[in-house]
């Protein structure tokens, strides 16, 4: 009896080892396939159709439209406004959040600070509270007449600002809320990173005559680099998907000043039921985040080298 090639191959130890490997990663691959590649593929498919309210009534009302959704989006001023707002939020809010987190982490890691656990919990609290509940409180804080923020500004002689009603101030107000809400999480990661910096490096630096500032630049920051990049990438990915804050605080207004890409997508998809258009927005956002993350990772590699 002659054996087929496959049968022979099946017996080799190499194949057995790789089969075990495949078996081990199979659950992960299935999960990623079902919960990532399948939806991404489906939404890509959806984005080249004109799936809308009529299609809900009768699936025969769906047509393939090729790239029409995309070309129309690129001509839509609302899309560009939403894109601009999203970058405004991510590019200002992201670094601000990371900087605040780092500042808080450095404070809490300082040897002189007492009740560290208590402060850590307090700073982390905003992150674990429900945004909708928090938003109600912040709306009061931002209230043009009765809000605490304007009251405090009034005490130092600054005229009241219509935080959520003025197109110029609405986005800064949203950024402030987002920074407050999110810095706690990054702070914990930074603290973990700081605690992993070997103490003897500081001692050596101190012996060489480095002050606090130089220690920070030449010991703390280089050692924190991996943490830094992780926090940076995760924060930016999250911030490009800005949705809940404007949805509860301003519903995208005033004059579209806080309409983010995801909010725009949500409106197209679930307000107007233009799911084909919504899917193409999702896909463009996916590409934006992909490119941005690739840039960040390349930056990391270059800095690390």
């Amino acid at each position, binding site marked *: 009896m002659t054996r087929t090639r496959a049968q022979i191959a099946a017996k080799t130890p190499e194949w057995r080892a790789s089969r075990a490997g495949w078996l081990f990663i199979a659950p992960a691959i299935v999960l990623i396939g079902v919960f990532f590649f399948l939806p991404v593929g489906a939404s890509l498919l959806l984005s080249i159709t004109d799936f809308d309210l*009529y299609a809900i*009534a009768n699936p025969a009302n769906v047509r393939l439209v090729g790239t029409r959704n995309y070309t129309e989006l690129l001509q839509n001023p609302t899309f560009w406004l939403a894109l601009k707002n999203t970058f405004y939020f991510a590019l200002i809010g992201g670094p601000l959040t990371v900087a605040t987190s780092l500042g808080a982490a450095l404070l809490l890691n300082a040897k002189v600070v007492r009740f560290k656990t208590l402060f850590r919990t307090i700073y982390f609290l905003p992150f674990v509270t429900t945004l909708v509940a928090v938003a109600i409180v912040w709306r009061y804080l931002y209230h043009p007449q009765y809000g605490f923020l304007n009251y405090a500004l009034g005490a130092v002689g600054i005229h009241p600002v219509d935080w959520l009603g003025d197109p110029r101030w609405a986005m800064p107000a949203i950024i402030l809320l987002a920074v407050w809400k999110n810095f706690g999480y990054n702070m914990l990661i930074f603290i973990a990173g700081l605690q992993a910096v070997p103490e003897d490096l500081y001692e050596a630096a101190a012996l060489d005559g480095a002050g606090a500032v130089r220690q920070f630049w030449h010991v703390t920051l280089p050692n924190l680099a991996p943490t830094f990049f992780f926090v940076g990438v995760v924060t930016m990915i999250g911030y490009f998907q800005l949705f809940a804050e404007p949805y509860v605080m301003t519903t995208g207004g005033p004059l579209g000043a806080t309409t983010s890409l995801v909010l725009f997508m949500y409106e197209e998809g*679930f307000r107007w039921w233009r799911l084909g258009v919504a899917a193409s927005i999702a896909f463009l956002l996916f590409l934006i985040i992909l490119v941005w993350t690739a840039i960040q990772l390349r930056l990391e590699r270059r800095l690390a080298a």
Partner: protein
Amino acid sequence: MLRGRALRGLIAACALTACRGAEAREQRITLRFWAMGAEGENVQVLVREFEQLHPNVDVRVQQIPWTAAHEKLLTAYVGNVTPDLAQLGNTWVPELQAVSAILPLDQYVAHSQVVKSSRVFPGIWETNIINDTIYAIPWYVDTRVLFYRKDILAAAGYDSMPQTWAGWRDAMLAIQKKAGTRQWAIFLPTNEWMQPVVLGLQNQSPLLRDGGRFGAFEEPAFRGAYEFYIKLFRDGLAPVAGNNDIANPYQEFARGTFAMWITGPWNIGEFRRRLPPEMQNSWATAPLPGPTGASSGVSNAGGSSLVVFKGSAHPKEAWELIEFLSRADIQRRFYHLTGDLPAQIDAWQDTSLAGDPYLAAFYTQLHRVRPTPKVPEWEFLTSKIIEVSERSIRGGLSTDRALTELDAMVLRILEKRRWILSRAAHAPGDTAVAVKLR
């Protein structure tokens, strides 16, 4: 003594349940009723009464916030979990009809002693008729009229509100002449579509043409209305301000920042509550003026209606609840609970309605209301009307370009609708879709 009474009660209760028997218990029906905002809260009282009249029916009212209602209704339809009946904003009816989520009600209306087209304001009834079929029963009504400062108008030399556009404009010019800085004749929020659309309806514009296939905004009727509207801003009679720019319109109205405001019935209560006492004799309401006089002064046919969903297992009971809520006495009670104006004309005989001088303008206006186009895309189209008119007002876009752009946008948006209509027209076997949409 006490125990004796309790025992007797218990026996009576047992006897009652027993005589209704197992059969009645088996037929116990639960109706799921979605109602929005304040209506959802206040209708509960009336629904309890309905349950007493129909002991085998339990009505579960689910209160839905207005802001989430539209999404929830469509999501429920897609997910096959629609309620038995629901309250719908009148402009949403075409949308739910287009996806064939709601039941045609002609059969029920034909046999009803309570719900009759002749007993409801005609323009309001008309909003719920699509392709000669009635799909929703008006519950309460809503339209826009003119709220104005009597004293300012009188100071400008008018003892009543003119009824033609020309007269109205002259009155505004006269008011503006006497106005101080930062005072205007009228407040027309730039971020609302209602004002230009109502003026268009007044000028006999169909808004859309060819059965809702194309925009009719470039046609003379709408153009005339649009020019009239934009000119109010150009001539400085209306402030270039949206709703968000005026923090407290009541305070501004009391200060004379603007002398007129086109708004709805909910503001009668707000004016009474929020205007200072000395101001209470200085304001009034009037039906909207029209291009050629009172009869052309139409307004929008707003409000909410009740619909039965196709997915309902108990359409008969759902209809009975609609009939109950349409009874003139119940509508009157609903008015007292919510302040919502009754859709049933008979309900207006109530003294508190008939005797209210501020409501008289609404009663007149409600006989002169006209529906907006009944296409599912209408809500989306209104967002484009706002976009274009804001650019005209704030950015100085010319009327020609604004209306050309608006019709071009409408042309794109209605493309799908035209395709569906033409496909159905060419394929006789598939007329169901077309008939539904026309």
